[in-house]
Every structure is written in C-alpha cells, then in structure tokens.
C-alpha cells in the first residue's frame, strides 16, 4: 500500500516568456514530512512553492494536493497555507485579527466563540498568549514570524508552505526558530514544505532535502544522504563545505578509482557515475574527513597557513604544494595540545574512499552551477 502523497508534481514546467524557471519536475512529497526545497536563488524553488499555493500556474504538467489535480483551483480554495517571506502580516489588523483572518473567511461561517477560542489556541501554540491586541508594528521580527506561523496553522491546512521564513531573523533567533519549527511539525503532524537557500537550515530541519538547480531537481534524499553521497559536483559544492581538487583518472582499483592530482599524488576515490581512464575529474574532500598529523605519514603534505580555533574544533587553511589551499577541520580535545600553529608543516591523511570523484563539467569551471544538467534521481 502506498499512501497518497500530500503534494505531487507531475512533469511540471513553468515558463515566463522565454525564460524557463522550472523544467520537467516530478516530485512526490509523502504525508507528514518536513521537506526542504534547497537551491541558489533563481533555481526555481520559490516558483515550485508558489505553484503549490496557487499563485502561479504550471505551463505544463500538473500539481496535485492529496491526490487532487489543482489546475484552475485559485489560492483561496486550496487546502494549504503559506508563511510568506517577510511575513506579509496585515498592518491594519492587530495580532488576533491577523490570526483569525482565515477563520473569518470560512463558509459556512464559524461562530464567534469558535473563532476566538481557535485564535487563542494558535496564539498559545506560538507562545504569544496575551499579545492578541498588539499592533503588528509593535512586534519584534521573531514575534512577527510566530504570528505569521499561527495565522497559517490556525486554518489546519493539509500542508504548510514556508517561503524563506527565517531569512529576516538574526542568527540566534534563527536557530531557536529552527528548533521550534521542527517541534511544531512533529506536534501537528502535517507536511511542511520549506523553501530556503541556506543549506545548513535545510539539513538541520528537514526529513527530506530536495536540492534544485537551474529549474531542475538535482537530488532528493535525507539530509545525511545529501551530505555524504552528493549526486553531483553541484550538490557536493553547494551543500556543506568541501575542498574540490581537480585531477585525472589514473586507473581503477575495485569500486574505487585512482585519481592523479595536480601535484602527482594519487588518491583512491569513490564515484557516483562511471569514469574511465584519462577523464578529468573534481574530487570532493570534506574538511572533517581530513586528519592532520606530524609530517611523515599521510598522503599529502602541507604547511599550516591559518588556524581558526572554534572551541570544540579548529579549522585550518593548509597550503599544499601544487594543489593550493585546503580546508581541514579537526576536533579539539581538552589538554591534548593537538593544535598546529601557522607555519608548521603537517601531513594530511584521509580514509581510502573518503574522497568522491565527479566528472568535471566540459566548460571549464567558472559557471558550472548554471550549466549542470543532471537527470533527476528520486
């Protein structure tokens, strides 16, 4: 038995004049999931969200909500609600009237008592009890954010859409809201679809991340999958920090390929697509995969240029001859004295197969993000 997906895109393409914003998207979002649409600006993620909300109509294909084709259904008849970027709260209404706005639109009409009690519950849910009669402009950014959440959730939507909801908040508040949103989603149990360009936010909050680029879905998977097994060079580079080293395939050893780096060092790397000898590749090496040690053992040698001590970890910029600067991240144990100083020579080690090799895009480097066209993996 397969449950009807809450949201389903079938062959959805959206064009604005000659510009294609979204092209041929197939996506099914299972019930009660927290899904993030992640990508750089202009990748089509917001257009997708607006097509669910009904503010844009697909040029081709169809969007289904709980199995119903939404073609021709205006926003006010869709069982979804949105938290808008910068919230779009009504400035002429107070907090409570903003929250009860949707309830007042319900036909048949709800009783005043029900409206008041549900608005009260929604206020309490976002921890704003007692703020009902405040004006919108009297609230802080974080409070406005919570009013926008309550205003959407009070209508008990099938799906909650969130358009960059945390972008306007400062870092501390953003972290708090990330946790609060996760808790809310688990409590209410409805599907949340979050649009964000912040990969950390996408990884930390969602059950599934849908990475988009150039109007297409590049990868759909759990956060750990996206991070550990990026589908292509774009995802590897966009999600999390990584070192990208270019090299040539020198041979194969079992499942791994041997890649000769620019300085002649040969490393064993995993791959996501078939590679043959002589192919130019980029190898992704996450900073935390690198281990540093005294010179002598390890596959690469370099000199520490900078050290950023972060408490539990330290980040190093290490100059490797013939390759350039590598970012390494090392755990710090109290009293171990395992910190390296700038100018110190170090050996860099990593587990065989930790690096991931990707074929390098044909047009050399500069605008690889825009020109990656990778088939959907879902």
């Amino acid at each position, binding site marked *: 038995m397969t449950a009807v997906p809450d949201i389903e895109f079938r062959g959805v393409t959206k064009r604005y004049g000659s510009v294609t914003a979204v092209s041929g998207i197939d996506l099914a979002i299972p019930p009660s999931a927290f899904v993030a649409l992640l990508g750089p600006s202009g990748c089509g993620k917001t257009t997708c969200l607006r097509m669910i*909300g*009904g*503010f844009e109509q697909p040029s081709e294909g169809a969007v289904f909500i709980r199995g119903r084709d939404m073609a021709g259904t*205006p*926003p*006010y*008849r869709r069982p*979804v*609600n*949105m938290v*808008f*970027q*910068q919230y*779009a*709260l*009504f*400035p*002429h*209404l107070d907090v409570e009237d903003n929250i009860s*706005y*949707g309830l007042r*639109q*319900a036909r048949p009409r709800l009783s005043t008592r029900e409206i008041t009690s549900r608005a009260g519950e929604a206020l309490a849910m976002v921890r704003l009890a007692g703020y009902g009669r405040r*004006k919108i*402009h009297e609230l802080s950014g974080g409070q406005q954010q919570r009013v926008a959440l309550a*205003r*959407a959730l009070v*209508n008990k939507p099938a799906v909650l859409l969130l358009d960059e909801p945390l972008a306007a908040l400062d870092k501390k508040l953003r972290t708090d809201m990330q946790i609060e949103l996760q808790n809310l989603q688990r409590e209410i149990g409805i599907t949340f679809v979050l649009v964000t360009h912040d990969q950390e936010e996408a990884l930390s909050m969602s059950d599934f991340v849908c990475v988009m680029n150039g109007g297409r879905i590049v990868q759909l998977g759990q956060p750990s999958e996206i991070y550990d097994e990026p589908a292509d060079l774009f995802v590897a580079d966009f999600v999390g920090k990584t070192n990208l080293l270019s090299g040539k395939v020198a041979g194969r050893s079992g499942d791994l390929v041997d890649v000769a780096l620019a300085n002649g060092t040969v490393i064993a790397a995993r791959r996501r697509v078939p590679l043959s000898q002589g192919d130019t590749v980029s190898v992704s090496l996450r900073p935390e995969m690198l281990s540093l040690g005294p010179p002598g053992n390890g596959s690469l040698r370099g000199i520490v240029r900078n050290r950023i001590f972060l408490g539990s970890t330290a980040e190093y910029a290490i100059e490797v001859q013939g390759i350039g600067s590598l970012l390494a991240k090392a755990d710090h144990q109290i009293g171990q004295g395992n910190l390296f100083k700038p100018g110190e020579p170090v050996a860099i080690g990593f587990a065989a197969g930790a690096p991931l090799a990707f074929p390098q895009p044909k047009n050399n480097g500069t605008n690889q993000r825009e020109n990656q066209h990778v088939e959907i993996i879902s």
Partner: protein
Amino acid sequence: MHGNRFRHNLLTALLLGPATAWLVVFLVLPFIAITVFSVGERAPEGGYQAAFTLAQYANLPARATAFWNTMVLAPAGALACLLVAYPVAYYLALRAPERWRLILLALVVIPFWTSLLMRTYAWMYVLGGRGIPALLAYVGIEDIRLINTPGAVLLGIVYGYLPLMILPIYVSLERLDRRLLEASADLGATPVSTFLGVTLRLSLPGVMTGFSLVMILLLGEYLIPTLLGGGKVFFIGNALVDLFLQSRNWPFGSAIAITLVLVSVVVLIAANRISTRLSGARRVDLI
C-alpha cells in the same frame, strides 16, 4: 560651541524665512484682518467700519441657500468624484500593464494643463441649448434642460476635480504590498473579500486625502456654479464675491469666510481621524 550653535540657528532662520514671511503676509495677516472685519459693521458707503458686534454672525441664515448648496453639493461632488476616481486609480495601480502606466497617468493629468475656466466654458456649450439638448431634440426628446441645474454643477465638479482624486488614491494603491493580497487569498478570502478587507482598507488614507482635498476646494468653489449653475445654484464662493465686490458688505462677507474656514478645518480633522483609525496607520499625510 556657542558660535556654532548661533550659526546653525541663523541658517535655520534664513532657510525658513521666506516661507514664514510668505505665510505671515498672505495668510496670517489677511486672516486676522478678516476676523477683525467680521465683528465690525458695514460703513454707510460700503466697506468696513470699526465696531464689536456679532450681528454679522447672527445674520448668517440670510445666506442659508448658499450654505445649503455648498454643504450638499461639495460632499456630493467629492463623493461622485470618488466613485469615478477609485476604479480608475485601481486599474492604473494594480491592473494596467507596466509600460502603459505612465502614459495613462499622463492622460489623467494633461487636462489639468489647460485652464479650468476654458474647460468649464466648453461644458457650458455642450450642456447648453445648442449642445446635448439640441441633439436629443433631433431624436425626438424635447424640453430637456441640462445647463443651470444642480446636475450640471455636479458634472462640472466631477470633471474638473477628477485628477485631484485619482492621484492620491493611485499613490496609496501603488504602495500597497501585493503580498498582502496574496496572503489574503492564501487564507481563503475570495477576491471580493480581499478587496473589501485589505485593498480598500489600506487605500483609505489616499481616499481620505483625495476626498478632503476636493471637498475643501469645493467649499470655496466659485467658477463652476457661476458658469454651469447660472446663478441659480449659488455656492458660498459666489456669495463671497457678491458681498465683497457688489454690495461691499465686508463685515458680513468676512463672517461667512471665517465660518467657511472653520468648516474646512473640521472636515480635515474628521477625515484624518477616520482614515487613521480604519487603516491602522500610525500617521496620515493629509496632503
């Protein structure tokens, strides 16, 4: 420190000087003069004679018709203007294609560049015996009288003051955050509910600005009633001209003028209060 402050104050005084002088000479002094006149008496040969009496104010009912016409036709004219202007402003701000907007706005404003006198004269001919009534007679509808009626005055008012109503409403609709309209739709509001609950409410400051602007100008209107009302639809403005220039009863004219100013101020304050409360704005720029 001290000299600096002095220089600063001097600069402020210099910058504000011309405007202040202008206001004092052309607004404050005449206003004081008229206030003084209004409690005086008419000199035997006309003009003003010093006295202190409220007789002129007691005599206001003698011009009740002019007051009545003004008090009915000014709000009615402003309202008619509003009803015509709102859809135009709405279309311009929210529906018109971007590249046409400027041209359409220009079309609204351009008639303003010709004199109101000329345009009103044109209406005199259009509405007069050889205008529309002659056309109607041609198709068999006889004895239609258009000129010199309250209807003709109302038409002239709407025609003459339309741009003054359209522009402030256009500005407030243009500033409207479109995402609020989307949010309203998202929350289940039909287009009609969204219009009433969001668009109209948030454009009220513009509506009130346009309304009070037109209303205040209409309270002192002289030209349109003269030309299109033919002396039959008499406004306060006409009464003032008559009193100052014909019968030379300056004190009575002054009393009427003062009353007019007070009414205008009350209208302004009321409009400001209403729009501030309804639109939830913190402050409203009236003009």
